[in-house]
């Protein structure tokens, strides 16, 4: 197990290096460099000043040196400053990461709380009205764009309850109640999408497990239905669900981009969108790499959890 974990960790390094190369290459693809495009739009900066800024940002170095420098900055956790605000990227990330973490954790919790019971209900009452309702909700969850759902939630919350998203973020430690007020609706919107895929998976795996011999044995012993379903069947049925939830992490992280923008939450997603709109290259490339690294790590954790949950799986 430890050996497997170590090997997977080692394999993740070249993948991340390639991702960084792709991100770096992408930022250098366009004609000229980041700065010419940037300053060309405002058009009131002299050639000498441009040279100076270019030198300050090390954009006059050859590409391989720029790449090496950037990698070193990432590894040593000093990814530089934003071109626009001049704020160190670590400072802005320090403010944004807790927001995104809270949002995704809450969304995941809400998503699972909705998905697993409905999935089980759908499976145990297959082809009844409640099963159909559950399945229709799941398919619509996969098709409703989260930015639309978010916009509708805000619109109708404003019309019916005169609720508007609060301006200015309040951390959980300052005021737990106000913080939850800010996070509950966006997390629900984000969690709904996650719950759709999870619900579908839970339903099909529970259906499969309920036909297994050992479940029949449990019924034959005269156990109560609740115990058969929750104690015997669900535990094994949840194993593939872990993989689905793991696979949804990327969708969840991408979803924060949209949900944070709509609900005005100052997290990683909104930071990235703003950096993209302002063409703030150092921030964009650092954020994208951070997301990629998080995703690769989380996927590794999901695989390890899988091995831990299912004793039949032993990695060589």
């Amino acid at each position, binding site marked *: 197990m430890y050996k497997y974990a170590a090997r997977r960790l080692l394999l993740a390094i070249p993948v991340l290096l390639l991702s960084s190369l792709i991100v770096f290459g992408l930022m250098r693809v366009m004609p000229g460099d980041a700065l010419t495009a940037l300053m060309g739009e405002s058009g009131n900066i002299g050639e000498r000043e441009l040279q100076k800024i270019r030198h300050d940002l090390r954009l006059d170095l050859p590409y391989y040196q720029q790449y090496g420098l950037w990698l070193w900055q990432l590894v040593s956790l000093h990814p530089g400053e934003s071109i626009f605000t001049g704020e160190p990227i670590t400072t802005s990330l320090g403010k944004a990461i807790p927001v995104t973490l809270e949002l995704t954790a809450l969304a995941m919790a809400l998503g699972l709380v909705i998905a697993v019971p409905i999935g089980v209900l759908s499976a145990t009452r297959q082809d009844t009205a409640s099963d159909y309702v559950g399945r229709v909700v799941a398919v619509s969850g996969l098709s409703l764009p989260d930015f639309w759902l978010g916009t509708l939630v805000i619109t109708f919350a404003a019309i019916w309850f005169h609720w508007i998203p609060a301006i200015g973020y309040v951390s959980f430690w300052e005021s737990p109640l106000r913080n939850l007020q800010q996070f509950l609706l966006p997390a629900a919107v984000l969690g709904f999408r996650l719950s759709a895929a999870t619900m579908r998976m839970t339903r099909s795996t529970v259906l499969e497990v309920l036909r297994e011999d050992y479940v029949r044995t449990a019924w034959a012993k005269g156990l109560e239905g609740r115990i058969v379903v929750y104690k015997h069947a669900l535990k094994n049925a949840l194993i593939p669900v872990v993989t689905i939830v793991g696979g949804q992490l990327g969708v969840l992280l991408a979803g924060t981009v949209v949900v944070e923008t709509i609900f005005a939450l100052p997290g990683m997603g909104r930071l*990235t969108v703003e950096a993209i709109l302002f063409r703030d290259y150092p921030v964009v490339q650092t954020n994208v790499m951070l997301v990629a690294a998080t995703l690769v790590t989380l996927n590794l954790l999901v695989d390890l959890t899988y091995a831990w949950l299912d004793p039949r799986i032993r990695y060589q």
Partner: protein
Amino acid sequence: MALVNTRPAVLEADAAVELGRLRALWTTIRRKPLGAVSAALIAALVLTAILADQLAPYDPLAARPEIRLAAPSWEHPFGTDDIGRDVLSRVVHGSRISLWVGLLAVGIGTVAGMLIGLLCGYCEGRTDLVVQRLMDGIQAIPGLVLALAVVSVLRPSTTNAMLAIALVIIPGNSRIVRGAVLSAKQNRYVEAAQAIGCRHPRIILRHILPNVTAPILVIASIWLGNAILIEATLSFLGVGTQPPTPSWGLMLSSTGRAFMEQAPWLALFPGLAISLAVLGFNLFGDTLRDAWDPKLRRN
């Protein structure tokens, strides 16, 4: 002489496979009502896009400030927006952008992914290792974030959004095609073709490719829905289609959010259009899989 004779036979066999697939699809659509619903949704979307000029009651770009933010009525069933443009006409014309971006992005992504997958699966070895790690590297970045980064580099426009979505599609497609090629290569007839000295392109085109088309079509259908969703999201975030072109995502972000309390219909109808289009392609992908995947058919 023998060579001349085999040709029509091969063509007939191809036609039979195609016919068999269409028949399997038709049976599934008839047996499963959701399949019929998805086919109807897609047909409606395609027809709306083709006949947009005839279907739209007004010019989607014509502003009439005197009737701005008018609620839905007989004259304007979906209401009007902040400068008095007819929302129904804009939604109808928006189907063109969504379908166009979806088809082209998925087309480019599928063809490129297929070529890469064929190359990797057929050659194996070092090429395969290097290219597949590159695909891993792209896949490590969430699709929407990658598309955002690409568009930020290329400048926001419909075409660039399309290219960005195509790039997102390539790695997953290449992997599935690669897997299918690897398993198709195990077939005896491929070995036989190699033994009688067929050239590589011929083996790939005539013996391997036909095995790979079903999985490609299934993924392409599911990706069409996703591509429409990503285009709408990019436009919503302001880096996709630019105003005044009617794009569903853009309609939601520019006027839909600004006037949501006074005029909720501005956000309601474009969003509904996106959802129905995506739902159609998602369900259709499921139906295709049910019809063509022998493992699922048995159940």
